[in-house]
């Protein structure tokens, strides 16, 4: 009785371990590259990095690349602490971050990766609005904003409460948006739904009729059928909506901006990271356009930085 059970138990255990070991061992490495590359940071840049990692892994299965989305701010904190190798960033490194990195002995290289245009979106069913001015945007998003309903902004707009969605306090997108629209970094009203996960924002705007949100262009692009993007007008510029061309030629103002990755210099000495970066800049133009951002015309300057 007991020996029978022992046999069944060992058989099951062996079966499980074998499936596990075989799954572990069956890595089609292709190349012989191994190593670990820790990446974290901006959720805006994440789709690019994810596409690159996915394709890089087809040829280099043994290079393990976990990617997190703690937001540019969260990623930077880890990066200047030496906890990760590469930081996705949707805004340049700040002076205080530079200082902390220096204090911690972390040297880094900045790479420009693509261009983005932060897109302001509303629910698809709203056909009473096509554009919004930067002044109106400021009225809605500034700290202690008095705007609760659309009609507060403009009496001809519906008498309905605006539901707001946007990235949170760790987001480079929020930092850039607030600086450009509200005039001060991170100055923003408190009663919106903040999330570093852009998918939450997309779901929110898509599901709420009178909602508004802002995030990187790629997220609008991927969900064009479900969202409506607003053209932006500012004091010196006519209405312009985000698109591949307007972002590329710089006419999408003021919400157009470059996207970066920051790489730890010490990590860059590793073979796997060098190869990864080479792939990032040589092979990624199509990935970037596929995802919805605008690649640089020429990456040779960036490739030259890889040492």
């Amino acid at each position: 009785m007991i020996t029978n059970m022992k046999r069944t138990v060992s058989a099951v255990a062996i079966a499980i371990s074998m499936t596990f070991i075989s799954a572990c061992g069956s890595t089609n490495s292709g190349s012989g590259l191994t190593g670990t590359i820790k990446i974290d940071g901006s959720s805006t840049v994440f789709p690019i990095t994810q596409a690159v990692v996915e394709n890089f892994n087809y040829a280099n299965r043994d290079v393990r690349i976990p990617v997190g989305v703690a937001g540019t701010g969260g990623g930077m904190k880890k990066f200047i602490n030496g906890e990760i190798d590469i930081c996705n960033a949707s805004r340049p490194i700040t002076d205080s971050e530079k200082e902390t990195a220096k204090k911690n002995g972390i040297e880094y290289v900045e790479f420009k990766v693509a261009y983005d245009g932060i897109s302001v979106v509303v629910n698809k069913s709203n056909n009473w609005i096509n554009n919004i001015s930067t002044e109106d945007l400021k009225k809605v998003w500034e700290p202690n904003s008095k705007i609760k309903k659309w009609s507060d902004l403009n009496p001809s707009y519906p008498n309905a409460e605006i539901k707001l969605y946007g990235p949170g306090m760790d987001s480079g997108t929020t930092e850039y948006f607030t600086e450009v629209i509200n005039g001060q970094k991170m100055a923003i009203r408190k009663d919106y739904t903040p999330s570093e996960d852009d998918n939450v924002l997309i779901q929110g705007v898509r599901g709420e009729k009178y909602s508004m949100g802002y995030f990187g262009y790629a997220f609008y692009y991927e969900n064009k059928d479900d969202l409506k993007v607003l053209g932006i007008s500012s004091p010196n510029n006519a209405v312009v909506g985000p698109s591949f061309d307007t972002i590329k030629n710089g006419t999408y103002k003021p919400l157009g901006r470059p996207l970066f990755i920051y790489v730890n210099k010490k990590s860059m000495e590793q073979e796997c990271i060098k190869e990864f970066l080479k792939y990032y800049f040589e092979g990624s133009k199509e990935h970037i356009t596929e995802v919805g951002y605008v690649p640089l015309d020429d990456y040779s300057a960036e490739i030259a930085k890889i040492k």
Partner: protein
Amino acid sequence: MKDNIRYRKIKNKMFHIFILAITCLAILVLFVLVWDMLSKGLKTLDWQFLTSYPSMFAKKAGILPALVGSIYIILLTILFAVPVGLATAVYLEEYAKDNGFTRFIKINISNLSGTPSIVFGLLGLAIFVKFFGLGRSVIAGALTMALVVLPTVIVSSQEALKAVPQYLRHGSFAMGATKWQTIRKIVIPSALPGVLTGVILAISRALGESAPLLIVGAFSYVAFLPKDIFDSFMTLPIQIYLWIGQPKAEFREIASTGIIVLLILLLGINSIAIFLRNKYQKNID
């Protein structure tokens, strides 16, 4: 008088029908849930799904790292939880006297089993990830999950030990064995099937738990298999959670496919438990 009886009888009948309906309603919800999952997710369930890595394209995406990660974590969890749980149960059933100290331990265990699993996640984050410096790794996750399932293992081991007939112990003592010898050679082997059932219940619980591992693990994109216990990991429920968060409808579909895989795994494990329990029942009868 007669009317009153009739009225009460009618009320009785109505009540009977009412609670039968409610019970069936509860079960109906179960069927709706399962049907919903199957209708959304069954068509993407294939070998490719089971052996692929996650991808930004729903069609290419698969749950291999999640499945392997789950198995890895569970094996380690059992490795930690079962010896400690069984030892605790042995202490409580075979050695402990009925005093305040023992009651204190029992209260502790009962409190632990009532604590929300997310609090264990916080404990794991503070102690295993930060204080012990294990980072967001497989071993930190497994240690956390071991604590989550520990009360389950203890309680079912206690039941199994209680079920061992006293005459077995007495017979052993009569032959001059010490307590430890008796426990080691007689009591534990007899209780093993019951303990095993408890282990399987613990596995079942650990498979479905996402909250503690979300706190301890927290990665968005893990497209590799963990190479050692200090590596990052992905588990089945967390991968499903990440897919649910994606706005595209195709990801909802593969989320339900992932759920189907999870439910099949749970069904399989619980069936083994029921089978073993019945076998054990036959053996002692």
